[in-house]
């Protein structure tokens, strides 16, 4: 349904995309994940006909984005990173305008606008000028604007960046409803939990290249970043030696000697094996915890840079 094949794009001396390929099958959700400046927005701009790639090809809904941009625009809904709304119009007027410009009759556009305002809980603010909306309201209105014609393919560029947690949850709810309706969705995000929560598959981009591609589970399994922590009933100096062969790596011991920690492959049955080995060595285990890698760990492992750095760059 959405396909990018070897996209290259530079803005002056800045290379935004250096050969990005991915595909989104019909009715699925792809999370395009990466830090700020990774090339996510550029990829979306190319797929939505706003920008032309220097090289590479792209298809949306079976249409060649470069050869048939006008036809592509009839198939897509786009919510851009900077909410693209008319600040001097009311929410209702914005939606009606977008509907009319998409070829709807005024009455039809008004009816649809009212439906969407209701769906996005904006009915109370519908007749206020958008300039006075909060960030979360603008985002929801922009999402609504992308849905007027009920397009089969949707692009949401960082739909929750800059929102407070409550607004973020509300936007997530709306996106989940959309996913339920069977659209094909490309979602970009800097937040791993967002991709984890909403996407069927994740493509991780960094410096204009795809560095990983898979389901959230596959990506987690691919990285050796699960963490195990064992708490003993009493300190035993030889405990580290006992579990070292099982975790296959360095074991850290807390100052009081009670807690042992190690990074491990997420191997099934590891907790049982550790408890047995310690039991055979005559040690009492109070607690054992194997923490699955979060997508943050995965991201760190893949990019070699903590995510915080990228957030700093954004500010």
């Amino acid at each position, binding site marked *: 349904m959405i396909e990018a094949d070897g996209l290259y794009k530079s*803005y002056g001396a800045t290379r935004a995309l250096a050969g990005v390929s991915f595909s989104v099958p019909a009715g699925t959700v792809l999370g395009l994940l990466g830090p700020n400046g990774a090339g996510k927005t550029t990829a979306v*701009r190319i797929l*939505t*006909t*706003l*920008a*032309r790639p220097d090289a590479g090809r792209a298809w949306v809904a079976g249409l060649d984005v470069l*050869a*048939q*941009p*006008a*036809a592509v*625009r*009839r198939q*897509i809904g*786009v919510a*851009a990173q*900077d*909410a*693209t*709304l*008319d*600040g*001097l*119009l009311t929410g209702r*007027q914005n939606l009606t*305008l*977008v509907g*009319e*410009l*998409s*070829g709807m009759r005024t009455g039809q556009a008004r009816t649809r606008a009212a439906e969407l305002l209701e769906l996005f809980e904006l009915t109370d603010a519908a007749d206020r*000028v958008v300039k006075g909306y909060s960030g979360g309201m603008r985002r929801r209105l922009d999402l609504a*604007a992308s849905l007027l014609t009920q397009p089969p393919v949707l692009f949401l560029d960082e739909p929750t960046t800059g929102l407070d947690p409550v607004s973020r949850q509300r936007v997530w709810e709306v996106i989940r409803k959309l996913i339920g309706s069977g659209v094909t969705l490309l979602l970009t995000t800097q937040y791993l939990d967002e991709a984890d929560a909403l996407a069927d598959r994740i493509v991780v981009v960094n410096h204009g290249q795809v560095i990983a591609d898979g389901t959230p589970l596959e990506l987690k399994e691919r990285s050796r970043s699960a963490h195990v922590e064992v708490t003993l009933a009493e300190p035993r100096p030889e405990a580290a030696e006992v579990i070292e062969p099982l975790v296959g790596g360095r074991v850290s011991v807390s100052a009081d000697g009670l807690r042992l920690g190690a990074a491990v492959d997420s191997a099934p049955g590891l907790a049982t094996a550790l408890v047995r080995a310690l039991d055979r060595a005559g040690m009492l285990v109070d607690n054992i915890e194997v923490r699955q890698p979060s997508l943050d760990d995965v991201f760190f492992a893949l990019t070699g840079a903590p995510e915080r750095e990228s957030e700093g760059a954004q500010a």
Partner: protein
Amino acid sequence: MTTAIAQPRPGEAAWNVVSMTRRNLVHISREPMQLSDATIQPVLFTVLFIYIFGGAIPIPHGGSYKDFILPGMLALNLTTSTMGTAVGLATDLHEGIIDRFRVLPMWRPAVLVGRSLADLLTATLCALVVAVTGLVVGWRTSAAPLAIIGGFALVLFFAYSLSWVAACVGLNSKSPESAASFGFIVLFPLAFVSNALVPTQHMPGWLQAAADWNPVSAVTAGARQLWGNPNPSASISAWPMQHPVEASLAWSVLIVAVAAPLASWYFRRRTTE
């Protein structure tokens, strides 16, 4: 490039223009200060010029300054009000809204055409304000109704053509503020170096030549001729002053023919990445 099948049909294109025009009119209603160029400024200018300069400026071949200045006031106000087109377009490009328009299956030139039509409606309002102010302070015309309408149409057509020049400026401005400076750098000299406010007979030779070939002079003289108001330029031998109606129509057609395609070219260039 684009296939014919997916291009908006002519009916849709016209519909898009209507929507965009309405949008721009809503903008004007939200920011009444934007409208002051078309309402308060003409009243002030007309009243100020008539009472301050009126007594001091003799009209060659006679006639009252009130009757002389009104067509000039109309040309001056409509010329300077086209600044709004430049500022409006620069604002649209400056804000994210243009990306919304660009991902919609709309006829893109509707952004420009809708703007120019909304500005034409504003200009019409401005013309009415000038005329009413004139009537209140004593401007009179003895012309036939058709000639009166013709005079207004002549000036409005010129303002419409200028709004395409303003569009070119707006499309090349980095910000709405720099688009606004267009008014002071280009439009005010254009309006002042003309026969709109004073007879050109007293200007230095080189300035008089510039004024006589200035399209604003042709438009003003054209309106004076149609309305039967004092038109001292009629005694000047330069071709536009001898045939002001033809000259001003020619200017307006020429300006639209050059500026409209240029504006749509700038628009495409500005929105290509």
